[in-house]
């Protein structure tokens, strides 16, 4: 078997004295979409930040194509081919849409290819083309999310990491954006690591999924299997038996299996 594109092994990351991630391992194979689910504070964002070098891990390895990249500067990791689309969009507010996209290609010198990719982004996100001279701050939440993904794509990364792209978006917009994410994967061969709280949509687009809880992995498997799991249904999809009173707040299962 070929080496996974991204391997995280036994990662431990601290915020000061607090251990935010306590031993997490995860693989992303070339061409896959992998989803990481978890509630607030489970350590999902920390995991991505550790992969990009924005945070240094105290233990464990991050391997890109078998090469160790942990604890390096984020710009070095970015040049290695990991693009990070942060939670809450974080576009450059005072730059225009076109400038934002150009920032994504900051590390690239192949001007012609960049031009082609810019065209590709506009094809996937036609709304951005119409707004290209507009200041990013004036974009709607959905447009900003598209811009952030487009900016990530402009780096032509080996791996695109998306941190909660569905956050604060209407259900229709979520469907649209995840449709585009799926297309980027299948048509452009882009490998994607997706962190989400919206388990339903994340498991539908991904091939494999991991579930995080208080800094550790509690479950993993093929996404279709996870969608069927009773625990996922109860904890993430809000599907549960009605219960005798018609409203049940407590969880039947206390552990993941």
């Amino acid at each position, binding site marked *: 078997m070929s080496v996974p594109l991204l391997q995280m*092994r*036994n990662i*431990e990351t601290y915020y000061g004295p607090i251990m935010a991630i*306590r*031993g*997490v*391992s*995860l693989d992303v194979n070339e061409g896959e979409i992998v989803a990481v689910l978890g509630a607030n504070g489970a350590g999902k964002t920390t995991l991505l930040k550790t992969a990009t070098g924005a945070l240094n891990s105290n*233990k*464990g*390895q991050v391997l890109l194509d078998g090469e160790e990249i942990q604890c390096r500067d984020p710009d070095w990791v970015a040049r290695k081919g990991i693009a990070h689309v942060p939670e809450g969009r974080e576009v450059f507010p005072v730059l225009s849409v076109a400038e934002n996209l150009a920032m994504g290609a900051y590390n690239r010198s192949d001007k012609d290819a960049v031009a082609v990719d810019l065209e590709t982004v506009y094809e996937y996100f036609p709304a951005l083309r119409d707004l290209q001279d507009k200041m990013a701050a004036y974009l709607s939440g959905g447009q900003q999310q598209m811009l952030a993904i487009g900016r990530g794509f402009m780096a032509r990364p080996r791996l695109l990491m998306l941190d909660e792209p569905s956050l604060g978006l209407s259900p229709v917009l979520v469907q649209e954006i995840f449709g585009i994410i799926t297309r980027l994967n299948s048509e452009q061969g882009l490998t994607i690591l997706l962190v989400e709280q919206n388990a339903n949509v994340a498991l539908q687009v991904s091939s494999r999924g*991991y*579930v995080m809880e208080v800094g*550790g*992995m*509690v*479950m*993993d498997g093929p996404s279709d299997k996870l969608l069927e799991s009773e625990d996922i249904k109860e904890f993430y999809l809000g599907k549960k038996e009605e*219960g*005798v*009173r018609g*409203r*049940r*707040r*407590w969880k039947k299962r*206390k*552990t*993941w*299996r």
Partner: protein
Amino acid sequence: MTAVLQDGCDTLPKLFLKKSKERGDRIAMREKDFGVWQSYSWSNYRARAFEIAHGLLSLGLQRGDVASIQSEDCREWLWTDLGILLGGGVVNGIYPTYQRRQVEHALTDSSCRFLFVEDEEQLDKYLEIENDLPLIEKVFVFDWRGLRDFEHDKVANIEVLYELGRKFGETHEGLIEQIAERGTGDDLAALVYTSGTTGLPKGAMLSQRYIIFQTLMAPKYLRLTADDEILTYLPLCHIAERVFSGWLPIAHGATINLAESTETIAQNLQELSPTYMFAVPRVWEKFYSRITTSMSEATWFGRKAYDLALAIGLRRADKLIAEKPLSRTDKIAYGVADRLVFRNIKRILGLDRAHSAASGAAPISPSLLRWFLAIGLPIDELWGQTELGIVTTCRKGVFRFGTVGPAMPGTEVRIAENGEIVARSDGQFEGYLNLPEKTANTIIDGWIHTGDVGELDEEGNLSITDRLKDIIITAGGKNITPSVMENELKFSPYISDAVVIGDKRKFLSCLIMIDQENVEHYAQTQSVPFTDYKSLCARPEIVELIEGEIARVNADFSSVEQVKKFRLIDVLLTAEDEELTPTMKLKRSFVSEKYSELIDAMYTR
């Protein structure tokens, strides 16, 4: 039968009325509310119990009626327990981890009239089977959260009962005292359903005499006095916690501290630093492994200091066990080791104030007891069962590890011809509810057949070999007591529980439940990647680790007694699962049935 009296009282209600009045505003119990410890006085304990008793009486509670409590430990549990007794009722504790079928059995079998449940989760268990329980007249909920808009004829907030009781009490002063006065030691006081590894749980009937008899064992043998602080964390339905947190404090006045949950024991211990600690072997094992793992990560200097101190401690422990005098050097060396190392260990565990400690409810490894003695925390192993209460305990300053000590006063123990331990006492149980046949098989000529096999030494110390029905006879005809091996295996920080199998088989095999925390920690330090619990159990490095632990234990056993093969149970089990007893022990018969495929695989090539 001679009357059993504690402070002139032959029933718990009489004792409670007397003691709670004497103690007044002294603290009876503490429990956390929103993360802050709150104290509740004896007057408050009394007032709440009165309200509940009056409330139940106003609803028509008759002497001998059963009321059940289905809840995790909480202050309301204790209040209700006494409230029911003061009203002349019988208390039936139901494990909150019980599933529907078991709850139904415990409520139907006991003809329960009033049910107390902790919260909406426990309430739902009742509501699901409501139609099968016509005898239940009223259900009271301790914690009404999530039920604001809920209406049901039979279900009410416990506050409603308090109010009802207050009103009733105003017009019925002295009634509770009258009811208590009419009570005798023969009255049925409690039903305790034994976990029953096979079939449905059996309801052991405990009289007032049984309870008073238990309280007589303190403070001489169970060294619990009015100045003591204890932590309550085992289910109060379990006889051990009921003795230590329910009855002994009423008789002797120790302060109860209710742990937030079983997960927070370590933290709660540090906050409270109890002066007396009763724990099940699982907890002592956890303490030990916590210290050993943190020591393996300490600095070089720290490790050396620990090793040196432990060597001194163990040498002293061995002399104490052998009853050899300690030399001056021993004492000085130990003093230094204690000051520099052991005291810190005890502080980390939250046991630096503990003057005594006890272990029971399951067999404990002698190696573990030796380690605790070495660090200066001698643990008395005691032995008992629901049918008898506490039967034996090791005496202070006498270390006969591997034995559970001599019988308590008023209790007789002997070994029957088939090796079974039989015992009788002035306070033994009255039999199993609705099961005359099982009762007749257990109480024969007044002696209770305990189901345990054991030996008595010339000093009268009892040692427990195993459960009679657990003894393995291999295909080669060799008798083997699995618990000896199992206890040594559990001494490993990586093994949480083990079940040795081999009845009518060619060799012994074993199912292992790993200790999640310590094995995960091991995997982390050894850079063994894993995701979830299942994948952790599947890692060859982890299987190898357990193999090493088994090989280490095997070395002390003869060839036929050695475990030749093993498998890990790769499902993270909780007390809700039927594989575990409420005190988190693997149930042998259930496990060997449920995992029969896994077991058979070990015996087929």
